[in-house]
């Protein structure tokens, strides 16, 4: 429940942040636009005022002060609609003509609000302007003030503001909608992950997180989760396989042992029979213990703790020793066992001497046991690139290619060797040891026979 709320909040927060960022960006852009356009309009207005001033000053130069006063008076009469302001004073700042009363002279441009302006008469229709922008200039007989209402600027600004506000509103809206869609989408995908994980934890191990075509973060997480689930499922199925195999492989010898003991208990047996049965029972118990021991050993090896005890191991001397141990048994079965060990270069691997011995012994013993009398078994050690390669081959019955992968599974035995002694753990142990040493283990067909290749890098 909490998790759902959280993902909901995440979606909302994402949308909000998204909208806020877009809105702020828009406001910034629009402010710059507003400022620049206002600046431009104000420059235009001043240019217009300048032009009128110049014309009037020209009149003063050519026609004299009276002509100017006359002209200003005429301009002032029709100025109201254009919001043009004119004032002509003499040298003593006394009113000569114009549409405002005298006001103090100043230098440069000034923006004067309407209410501070000493207008002459009633001005009815004030447009949108709030102030007059104007400047004084010197004429021969006195001073001239020309100004213009800022109505055009205000109109343009109002229009701009309106447009920009709409723009911001629309972008804000689309940001909220877009953000929500993205957020909800993310939330939906989170829910899908949550759903898959809940399904797995309730036992549906085959459930996986749906992948999306977008290769984004969520999809990456989904692929990681799926990878983990794949491994988990494999481990669990392996575990199930092992426990059912243990149940099978141990139940058989235990029940066999029980029946034999029952038989000697009930029948009137002689000492000889009792002894034979006890021997049998001991053998069965040793077999069971062996299976357990091997299973535990594999588990321990797979846990990897033995790596801390690794040391340099010379493969040549190790293989000589291993071959020596198996020679007599191989010969007794009529096999020929030969070793071809390339000692021109050192073949040193970082590993566990005992475990590596066990690996090679296991492979060799398999050849000795499963080949018919007279087989040729070969042990070869060679350099392979930067690493060493051990190749153990025989010309016996081999293993069908389709079984190559399976034989490394715990307790797996080929159907025909079910009846022979052995825990069915030998090759799993081999695989676990190879894996612990980072060695590549592969089986190949020897036409006929089997090649086991162990490559150390």
């Amino acid at each position, binding site marked *: 429940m909490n998790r759902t709320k959280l993902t909901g909040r995440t979606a909302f927060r994402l949308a909000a942040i998204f909208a806020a960022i877009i809105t702020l960006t828009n406001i910034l852009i629009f402010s710059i636009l507003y400022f620049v356009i206002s600046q431009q309009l104000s420059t235009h207005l001043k240019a217009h005022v300048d032009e009128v001033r110049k014309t009037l000053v020209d009149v003063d130069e050519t026609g004299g002060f009276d002509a100017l006063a006359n002209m200003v008076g005429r301009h002032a009469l029709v100025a109201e609609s254009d919001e043009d302001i004119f004032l002509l004073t003499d040298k003593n700042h006394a009113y000569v003509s114009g549409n405002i009363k005298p006001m103090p002279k100043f230098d440069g441009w000034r923006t004067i609000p309407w209410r501070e302006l000493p207008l002459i008469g009633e001005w009815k229709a004030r447009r949108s302007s709030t102030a007059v922008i104007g400047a004084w200039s010197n004429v021969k007989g006195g001073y001239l003030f020309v100004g213009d209402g800022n109505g055009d600027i205000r109109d343009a600004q109002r229009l701009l503001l309106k447009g920009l506000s709409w723009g911001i509103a629309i972008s804000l809206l689309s940001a909220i909608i877009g953000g929500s869609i993205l957020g909800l989408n993310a939330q939906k995908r989170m829910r899908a992950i949550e759903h898959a994980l809940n399904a797995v934890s309730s036992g549906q191990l085959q459930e996986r997180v749906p992948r999306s075509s977008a290769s984004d973060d969520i999809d990456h997480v989904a692929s990681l989760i799926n990878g983990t689930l794949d491994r988990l499922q494999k481990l669990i199925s392996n575990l199930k396989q092992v426990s059912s195999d243990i149940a099978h492989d141990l139940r058989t010898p235990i029940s066999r042992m029980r029946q034999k003991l029952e038989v000697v208990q009930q029948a009137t047996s002689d000492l000889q029979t009792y002894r034979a049965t006890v021997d049998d029972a001991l053998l069965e118990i040793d077999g069971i213990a062996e299976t357990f*021991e091997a299973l535990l050993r594999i588990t*321990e090896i797979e846990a990897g703790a033995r790596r801390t005890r690794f040391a340099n191991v010379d493969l040549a001397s190790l293989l000589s020793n291993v071959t020596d*141990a198996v020679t007599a048994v191989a010969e007794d079965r009529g096999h020929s066992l030969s070793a071809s060990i390339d000692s021109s270069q050192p073949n040193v691997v970082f590993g566990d001497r005992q475990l590596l011995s*066990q690996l090679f012994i296991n492979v060799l013993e398999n050849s000795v046991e499963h080949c018919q009398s007279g087989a040729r078994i070969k042990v070869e050690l060679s350099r392979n690139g930067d690493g060493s390669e051990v190749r153990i081959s025989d010309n016996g019955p081999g293993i069908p290619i389709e079984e190559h992968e399976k034989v490394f599974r715990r307790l797996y035995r080929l159907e025909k060797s079910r009846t022979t002694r052995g825990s069915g753990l*030998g090759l799993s142990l081999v695989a676990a040891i190879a894996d612990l040493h980072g060695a590549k283990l592969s089986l190949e067909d020897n036409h006929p026979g089997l090649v086991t290749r162990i490559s150390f890098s």
Partner: protein
Amino acid sequence: MTAMRILVVEDDAQTAALVGQALRDDGHTVDVVAEGREGLKRGAINAYDVLVVDRMLPGLDGLSIVQSLRTAGVKSAIMLLTSMGAIEDRIEGLEGGGDDYLVKPFALGELVARVNALGRRSTLLNDEVVLWVADLELHRIRREVKRNGQPITLQPREFKMLETLMQSKGQVITKTMFLRDVWDFEFDLKTSIVSTNISRLRDKIDRPGDTPLIHTVRGVGYRIDEPH
């Protein structure tokens, strides 16, 4: 064979009784305790030849007992009994001062043979250059074997096996002891590597007409001894 004083520290009453009896039957004097601290106390006070200590004990675990005894300078040979699969346990046990370990479930014969081997470490014929059993002679430096003066050619592994047997004349050497001494293998094998090599050795040492010297101890191992 010399009788030894042995202390068994084992909390499972039945195992303790069986182990104790097996060692007594072999002629040794055996004390049995079930609790760790009691084991440590007895081991430290009395001069036992061999201690057989279970790894998992109530009170004080086996490894701590071994470490404490070694710190206290106790020289007795120590055999640790460990549970299956825990290779780390065994290595720790040996590093902690144990001399040998045995994995449960074990054969009583194996235990007795290994305890005997531990006990005679000090009296082992290690510095003898020539070993004798009746008319069988083994020269350790010249790597020569003669029976009744006639030279016998042995494979290096056969020589090593005979040397192991003759060093412990009259004592049983088990399969696992051979695997360890001859090939340095500390794991069990599927094929009958030891018995095959022993029978080859026997074919060369005990020829038809000779008095057999190498004896099979059923279910336990092999022994070389003077003819009685």
